[in-house]
């Protein structure tokens, strides 16, 4: 039996408990044609599609419950507040945070990290250090550079291997008594690497250094338990995990959040205001100035409920089967080089192909109804590490199929014919 057919037969077994066709019916956007062919949506790391339940939750809110939250004593405001806070509780359960006080609704992972940099980081002193990894998304690099300009901190970088794994044994050597925070991406959006966050936290905590985790690409693909990770901050984005855009969550340990100054000032985050001085609300309102993305938060709550109904473990297992199949098949295409072959990966395959620039690849694949991403994926340091300007990235979700992966691989050969 050939490697491929063996993989496929294992896959069919692995997939037997997972009814992908039924799952696909929950996502209206998947059922369309692009350039006369069925859409194969393999750009999930950029943003996922939304299930009907999320779309309907947002729709229902605007049709029936639309009002501003907190303080209002009328029926609609009470319903809106209950739904908004219900969503916070749903996300709390989903990531197993101890308390809803520790969950701040933000615009997304980017804002969550900026919040920590500008609030927690405000007290950093010149010469203090923040340790990041070579695999960080720009969202976990640039906020610290902005803080560096403001406070004079230094940024150190934990290197990675050619295989796309962190050189974790070098972490301890990077920590010093000046290290104030370690920032690590849970799952690399560009390579798919699942980083050993628990281990990073253990090492950092031995030196009493808090750890911020960029979880944008983790929560769509795996069960995340912030208590088991013991991380100090965890950031996630709604739209990556089948919820709306413009909403995300910062989880922070209560003691840290309590001690942090407000991030933005405005309505909702105060207790009392006079022109002489203001006092601030407790957690999490202290960090939620202004009217938040109420409908977005409710949609995120619905997304979490949807993920629970699908089953994170089953979905993850199915995605791993897609990943193995994609990796196996791509390896056999002449001229293709996969970037990032870590032991533990989420269902992301980044690759380059001889004589076909990723941008041309993106156009050719689109012509075949296949949506992928071409570019630097907001990880220019990773591109530089591998010496490529860009890659083509296929990122899968549990609603993708083996057939879609096969179409991708076949289209690569077509791209070679058309462009190479």
């Amino acid at each position, binding site marked *: 039996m050939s490697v491929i057919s063996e993989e496929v037969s294992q896959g069919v077994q692995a997939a037997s408990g997972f009814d992908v066709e039924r799952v696909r019916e929950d996502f209206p956007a998947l059922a369309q044609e692009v350039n006369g062919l069925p859409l194969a949506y393999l750009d999930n790391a950029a943003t996922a599609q939304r299930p009907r339940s999320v779309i309907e939750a947002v729709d229902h809110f605007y049709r029936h419950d639309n009002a501003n939250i907190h303080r209002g004593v009328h029926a609609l405001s009470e319903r809106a507040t209950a739904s908004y806070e219900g969503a916070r509780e749903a996300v709390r359960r989903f990531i197993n945070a101890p308390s809803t006080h520790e969950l701040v609704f933000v615009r997304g992972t980017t804002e969550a990290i900026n919040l920590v940099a500008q609030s927690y980081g405000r007290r950093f002193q010149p010469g203090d250090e923040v340790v990041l990894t070579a695999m960080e998304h720009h969202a976990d690099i640039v906020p610290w550079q902005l803080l560096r300009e403001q406070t004079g901190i230094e940024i150190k970088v934990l290197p990675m291997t050619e295989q796309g794994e962190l050189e974790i044994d070098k972490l301890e050597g990077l920590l010093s008594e000046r290290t104030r925070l370690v920032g690590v991406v849970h799952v690399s959006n560009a390579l798919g690497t699942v980083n050993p966050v628990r281990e990073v936290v253990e090492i950092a905590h031995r030196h009493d250094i808090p750890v911020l985790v960029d979880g944008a690409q983790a929560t769509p693909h795996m069960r995340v338990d912030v208590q088991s990770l013991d991380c100090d901050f965890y950031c996630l984005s709604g739209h990556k995990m089948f919820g709306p855009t413009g909403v995300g969550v910062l989880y922070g340990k209560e003691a840290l959040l309590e001690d942090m100054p407000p991030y933005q000032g405005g309505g909702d985050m105060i207790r009392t205001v006079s022109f002489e001085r203001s006092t601030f609300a407790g957690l999490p309102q202290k960090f939620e100035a202004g009217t938040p993305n109420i409908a977005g938060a409710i949609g995120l709550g619905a997304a979490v409920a949807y993920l629970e109904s699908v089953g994170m473990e089953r979905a993850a297992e199915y995605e791993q089967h897609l990943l193995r199949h994609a990796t196996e098949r791509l390896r056999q295409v002449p001229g293709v080089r996969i970037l990032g072959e870590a032991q533990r990966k989420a269902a992301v395959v980044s690759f380059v192909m001889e004589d076909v620039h990723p941008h041309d690849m993106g156009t050719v694949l689109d012509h075949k109804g296949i949506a992928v991403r071409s570019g630097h994926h907001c990880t220019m340091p990773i591109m530089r590490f591998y010496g490529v*300007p860009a890659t083509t990235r296929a990122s899968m979700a549990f609603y993708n199929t083996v057939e879609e992966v096969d179409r991708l691989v076949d289209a690569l050969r077509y791209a070679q014919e058309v*462009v190479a």
Partner: protein
Amino acid sequence: MSDLSDLYQEVILDHKRHPRNFRAMEDASRQIDGHNPLCGDELQLYLKLDGDHIVDVSFQGSGCAISVASASLLTEVLRGKTVQEAEHLFEEMHDLLTSDHPNVDREALGKLGILSGVRDYPTRVKCATLSWHTLKAALENPEQQSVTTE
């Protein structure tokens, strides 16, 4: 969408495979980097001027088929032109590639006209215009060292 072969015409593929004037120029009068941050394409454009005449033009860099072919075609066409002619050509190419109703004589543009295939691929227009914007910046601001499409 039109057929892919409208975009990837044989002439474009030929220039992508064998870019013309693909070299650094030691004694360039103008040298400028063009960058498309969207896709990471980078090129260095070199111009050698004798008075008002462009006597030599070359480029280096990396990019997709469209941006390499566009730059290669540009270097072929530009040699021997005056600065004014080059500026006029920029306007015509800009019109051809970006306007909804281009008012350009495609015949007069010769083989540059084949780049018009990108019009059906809005995300790719900047690939084709990168070298032209780089040229424009080089002509207008001799001191400028880099330009982006953003």
